[in-house]
């Protein structure tokens, strides 16, 4: 990546009269050109830039050189599973007949698209150990919310919707878990972790009762440990009539190892942009399919893709349901206008087909990479929970606390050395959390280079702590004033 900041905004390239695109002319046969009645017309032109095409392209190309992606270098961002994004995935979306379809097109004209939805749905069911998936949710957090709505609809169908008002969430959970539970209308009750990072089963048991709707768990959890008491937990949760929710954020660790459905989970979501290699896109679009065990299928959201007896596929929606389907189904409602992020499904399906049975090596190799890093750094970095870890590990900062060098310093120094920083200050269980997830697509050479950088930083902390505290030193931007940004927010060009 470029070490010099390209700092212009597109608005600063604007000159009146320039433009970067032309349109075909249309000569109407019967009507005169359309004129919008003044009542409905905007009073002034929007303040959009006026720029020629070469300048637009050069602007964004220059801007891209100040960005760091998986294709730029190692991206060990814990809990985000920044694995390689295969190029065939992107190419598949661009193929003729794949991307140009309108979502309102009749089913007979989009059988290929519906096949993509249907096949991915069934592959995810196989991998998750679930009966059926809805691919409609747009992201991990959206999947959590949708999954909790499945829970809500299930309890309502049994007349317990008003009674079961609580969702239990471990204190190590991602922030989206409690937030999704709150948006779904639940009261959030936090469960404590044991010193080894796993859920304290006694504490969880004490909180179970007839008012609990679900327990949300991530497994492996956010400290990278497998929740080995899961059969016991699932049994207790089911005994009290609640459901087990699986947050699929860390599913990568279990590919080829174990299936959430076999662990007793009833509802789960998968982040296609983590485990199934679709790009993160600078924050999105992702996809957060939701799977359910047998018996809960009827609660999945509308619309759906169903296969008719003649083998053809059809979109089932409120206005196309047969009376029989209306009686049989009890959908939670709708969480998306159409059938979710279809282009992301194409990419995930391309990945699963490319991997085939090899996908069973993903979990073991992701865990091997993580344990290799763990064993190469635990003499210099504080390891609060001993290994073996699963796909990621959490250090509690440098082992030598006397230098007063923080996790933030380590993270920023890594940027100088050409690596993305790990996830920092999460989970909240430790003061100096430094969470590293290497993923299976990294080679031993890359890991060795990262390990060397981390060890060099530990040495710098001992020898030149004052220098380390000023990191980063070589990035195009140094220490943005985040307090100023929040105190006096300037969030548009117009407000600069």
């Amino acid at each position: 990546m470029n070490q010099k900041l390209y700092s212009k905004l597109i608005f600063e390239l604007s000159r009146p009269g320039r433009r970067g695109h032309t349109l075909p002319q249309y000569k109407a046969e019967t009507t005169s050109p359309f004129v919008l009645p003044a009542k409905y017309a905007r009073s002034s032109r929007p303040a959009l830039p006026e720029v020629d095409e070469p300048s637009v392209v050069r602007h964004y190309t220059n801007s891209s050189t100040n960005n760091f992606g998986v294709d730029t270098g190692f991206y060990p961002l814990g809990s985000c599973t920044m694995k390689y994004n295969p190029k065939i995935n992107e190419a598949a979306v661009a193929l003729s007949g794949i991307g140009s379809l309108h979502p309102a097109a009749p089913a007979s004209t989009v059988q290929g698209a519906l096949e993509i939805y249907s096949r991915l749905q069934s592959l995810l069911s196989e991998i998750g150990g679930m009966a059926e998936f809805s691919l409609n949710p747009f992201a991990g957090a959206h999947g959590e919310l949708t999954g909790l709505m499945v829970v809500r609809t299930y309890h309502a169908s049994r007349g317990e919707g008003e009674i079961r008002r609580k969702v239990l969430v471990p204190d190590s959970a991602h922030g989206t878990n409690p937030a999704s539970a709150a948006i779904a209308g639940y009261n959030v009750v936090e469960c404590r972790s044991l010193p080894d990072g796993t859920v304290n089963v006694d504490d969880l048991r004490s909180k179970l009762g007839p008012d609990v709707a679900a327990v949300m768990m991530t497994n492996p959890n956010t400290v990278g440990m497998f929740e080995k008491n899961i059969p016991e937990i699932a049994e207790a949760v089911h005994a009290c009539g609640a459901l087990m929710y699986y947050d699929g954020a860390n599913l990568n660790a279990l590919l080829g190892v174990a299936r959430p459905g076999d662990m007793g989970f009833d509802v789960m979501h998968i982040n296609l942009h983590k485990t199934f290699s679709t790009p993160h896109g600078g924050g999105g679009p992702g996809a957060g399919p939701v799977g359910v065990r047998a018996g809960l299928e009827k609660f999945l959201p509308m619309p759906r893709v169903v296969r008719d007896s003649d083998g053809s596929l059809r979109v089932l929606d409120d206005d196309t349901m047969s009376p029989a389907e209306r009686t049989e189904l009890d959908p939670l409602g709708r969480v998306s206008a159409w059938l979710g992020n279809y282009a992301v499904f194409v990419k995930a399906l391309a990945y699963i087909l490319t991997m085939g049975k090899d996908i069973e090596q993903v979990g073991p190799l992701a865990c091997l990479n993580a344990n290799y890093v763990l064993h190469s750094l635990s003499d210099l970095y504080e390891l609060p929970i001993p290994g073996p870890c699963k796909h990621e590990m959490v250090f509690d900062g440098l082992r030598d606390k006397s230098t007063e060098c923080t996790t933030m310093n380590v993270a920023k120094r890594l940027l100088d050395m050409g690596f993305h920083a790990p996830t920092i200050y999460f989970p909240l269980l430790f003061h100096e959390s430094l969470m590293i997830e290497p993923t299976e697509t990294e080679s031993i050479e890359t890991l060795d280079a990262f390990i060397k950088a981390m060890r060099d930083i530990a040495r710098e902390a001992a020898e030149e702590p004052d220098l380390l505290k000023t990191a980063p030193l070589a990035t195009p931007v140094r220490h943005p004033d985040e307090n100023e940004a929040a105190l006096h927010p300037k969030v548009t060009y117009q407000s600069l």
Partner: protein
Amino acid sequence: MNPYLPHTPEDIASMLGRCGAASLDELFSDVPAQLRLGKGGYALGAPMAEAEVNRYFRSLGKKNLETACFAGAGFYSHYCPAAVEAITSRSEFYTAYTPYQPEISQGTLQYIFEYQSMIASLTGMDVANASMYDGATATAEAMMMAVAASKKRRRVLVSATLLPAVSQVLATYAEGQDIILETVSDHNGATDRKALSEQLGAGDVAAVIVATPNRFGILEDFEGLAEEVHAAKALLIINTHASTLGVLRSQGEWGADIACGEAQSLGIPLNYGGPGLGYLACRQSLMRKMPGRIVGATTDDDGQRVFVLTLQAREQHIRRHKATSNICSNQGLMTLHAAVYLSLLGPEGLREVNETSASIAHDLVARLTAGGKLREKFAGREWLNECVLEIVDEGLTPRRILDACLERGILAGKIIGEKEIMVCATETCTPEDVKQYVEAVEAL
């Protein structure tokens, strides 16, 4: 060897050695045996070579019919300039994650800032966030934001003229929030203002949600609406699909407090309905109630103007169950798409997109209705590029129109009733497409 897995057997052996493990299996000694995947593994096929994957998707593509597109209903077939794809396919952009480390993420932060500025200007609002999933969930977030801002009020009035899918998403979200949604009926395809006034008069209303162009493509007249809503101490939310803001009176100009909607119409490929791009903008006073990521400008140690994620105290990773929303992601790559599209088109190009689309649609509708088989369902209403046609001819059904047009490679629109079809045109519809459409209907 698998192309995405770089480990040779020697690598694995030496790495296991450092871990003090005898086998990969040993790394999973903490997974109870009864939970382990059975010996046969997943029921998956052998790995496919890239050429085979390519062939498979090409064969699926052949099972789809590419058509000239006269369907809208929230997703619009506007042309996407080649330069947009050239930028969004740069992997520095698409393989990055949320810009948590501003020192190495200025590319992402900068285009989100530009996108926010463009949306704020199009909507006539002070601030926009870094995007939502789609137009329907953006409207749901707007609803929750308004209810949170009102503190105790629980009623939200929703016009019957919102797209049905949007209303359904609102209902699904409202359930968890104890929000009481009430539908405001329509009169000849537009919000019934008299009914709205009465419902507003009953009190306890947190927000009123309306749309223009609405579910029937009709342009609604919101004159005096904001004054009335504000007098009742409620907030006004207007849903509009983004492209039309190039010519239509903006939400800010109507006096709305929150603007939201789908921005797929900014040249984002149809992709069978996703990913699209939800947008959300509001007045300054509501900024700290906004969900999602927001990018702001600041300076760094060297005095350079730089961009960072800001106002994060609203968000789930800090506030957990007290956050303004559970949303974590933004639609990063889609906002890049919108920003590059709007940069290329500029204000004139976006105006032309709307005027050309409207001219084609009005020409088509004039020719289709001239034959006497069809008529405009909502006579006297103004519309831009989308319109509901009603079948007058007794023997004719929308399905027959759809089928006849499909034979000529044309998607005629979206069937929305037993005798109704909604048609829409964009600048991608050619004179020949229009001619074929008209002839197909004439031949019925």
